[in-house]
């Protein structure tokens, strides 16, 4: 799956979670840059991404995320 489509899927999930269709994510976007992306929203987003790609991230990988690009890389690694 190309990077762009993983990013698109993640963007869609974040928009649904935060109920804001205007959100635009780039690999450099950090959670704190997005209004409403707090720690509870973060859990919901990560779990929803795991569901969407039918995978489960390792605990250490989840705690080390810096930005959306890391999340995309994590999905890429998980889905091969």
């Amino acid at each position, binding site marked *: 799956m190309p990077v762009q489509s993983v990013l698109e899927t993640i963007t869609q999930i974040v928009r649904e979670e935060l109920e804001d269709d205007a959100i635009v994510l780039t690999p450099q976007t950090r959670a704190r840059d997005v209004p409403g992306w707090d720690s509870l929203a973060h*859990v919901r987003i990560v779990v*929803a991404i795991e569901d969407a790609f039918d995978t*489960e991230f*390792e*605990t250490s990988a989840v705690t080390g995320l810096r930005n959306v690009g890391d999340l995309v890389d994590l999905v890429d690694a998980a889905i091969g």
Partner: protein
Amino acid sequence: MTMDLLAMPWLPAPGEDWRSRAKQVDTSNKPGAAARELAGHALDAAHSRLLSRRIARAMQSGRPLDPLTRLRLAVLSSATFDFIADALPAAGARHGLAIDLHIAPADTIEACAFDPGSDTYAHCPDAVLVLVDHRWLGLASPRLGLSPAAGVDAAVARLRGVIGALQRGQINLIVVPTVAIPPLGLFGSFDACQAGSVRAQILAFNARMVELARDVGAVVLDVAALSEQVGTARWFHAPSYNLYKLPFLPAAVPLFADWVARLLSAAQGKARKCLVLDLDNTCWGGVIGDDGIEGIRIGPGSAEGESFAAVQQAALDLKARGVILAVSSKNDDATARAPFRDHPDMLLRETDIAVFQANWDDKPANLRAIADALAIGLDALVLLDDNAAERAQVRSMLPMVAVPELPNDAAYYPTLLLAAGYFEAVGFSDEDSLRSASYHANAQRVAIGAATGDTGEFLAALGMIIGHARFDPIGRPRIAQLVNKSNQFNLTTRRYSEGAIAAIEAEPATYTQQTRLSDQFGNFGVIGVIIARLDTAGDWMIDTWLMSCRVLGRRVENAMLAELVRQARARGIARIHAQYLPTAKNGMVRDHYDKLGFARTAQDQDGAQSYVLNVIEYNVSDLPFHHQPGADVQA
């Protein structure tokens, strides 16, 4: 296939337009009805969250949410509850509730329960859910060489303290959990034999918890059973606990929320009451009209026959606990009845079926006829039907009827039917086990009515025996059940748990009355309840008056009032005040007090009506009852 309960396979999958429709719930004309329909699908966590948010929005805007019943729920949880909260209002709508939720911060259970000024009490909850796990209870580690009993005692005492605090805080409905057993065998099989193993400690705790709940009138949420059904190796999800302090697998959230909602719904008297069975390929293999009685598959001799026998056995088991059975089948009546009469391997017989509808009308028409014949709502029905087209038709025309999805293999029918939680209960009484017989007797009574044609003669011919008594421990479970389940003949719809009933029973100034009825066809047991409180003027105020709808039209209400007046006179009470508080379901008793000769004193804009009866002037008329000797002489 294997059965994945987490996917809630008894619910149909959400369609293409589900998401866009869910987003319109809070702005729709009938948000309650829309939410209930949308909630009737197999919703994952994300779907559940979307719908829950819209329900919360509709609630905040103050829109009426009928047909949903509003329930204020406070949650005290040892672990993170926010993600479970995401799914609860959606699950509530599925079970007829509009859940208004307040969640205490994680692991502040005692701080909130013991502080009368806490936000938990400020929410004025109708119910409080206490959710704790083995860690909070100190049951997470083996106690080898230590006294295992002391650990269990301490765990029970901790929860008992919380329950006691909530009861002092006037919380009427308290829900407490059993505890799931983590799949961490220390000795292996020997864990079962070693009292200090985590497994043995939790098993001992759960047994004590169930006793405690019964003693104090709390309701048990059997988390241990849920975790077993899911599989504990799946249920316990260490990454989610370590990362987020989630008490179990995130994917289990929708099912967990459904278990909570169905229990709360049952405690509000909203559990379903009647299982309607299709026949061909639901109760037996094959089509009776084509295959004939020799050709259908039922009972031993074939694997398919065994599957359908298991469906019939499940139906009979439900009947034995008070669920009414009915039949709706597209067949000629005589053809459909033949296996019930003549097939030696049928477990179900005609006498098991309260209403038998075999004709060529569509299913919705037959379901309406069944509900009418039983004098219950359509929302009390569950339809078991193998035909996907019929299921879809009923869901679209009668969205209040529950219609489980069924796989092709009938071997799965019983598990799916029972896993869906339609017939959830918070108690079980002798009356429950006799209910089906009672509905049958009703059919015979209707026949007498048709023969005599005159109401007075009909009532006299029934040979009714009535008895009144104060509340007592023997009647208490049934009284609590009536108080919590009666919707239609219920003047104030106040719900009291069994524990609260016991407390009312003990109030010296409060008059309580339970009324029993039997006739020549059967014994109804307790069918009427009155609670009257002494007000400051020395008059009685009727707090609760309700009756089972099974005894409508028999002048039982007149007999109950005659007894109430007799007791009032014996105490020198001059006036009895009363209220009618309208709900979506109790319109049938709007004129109850007018008919009984009370004077109306006030009516407010919500439709609530106030009444008073002058005890001295009231004339007791002749009534068609024999009195049960000894029952109504208690002061």
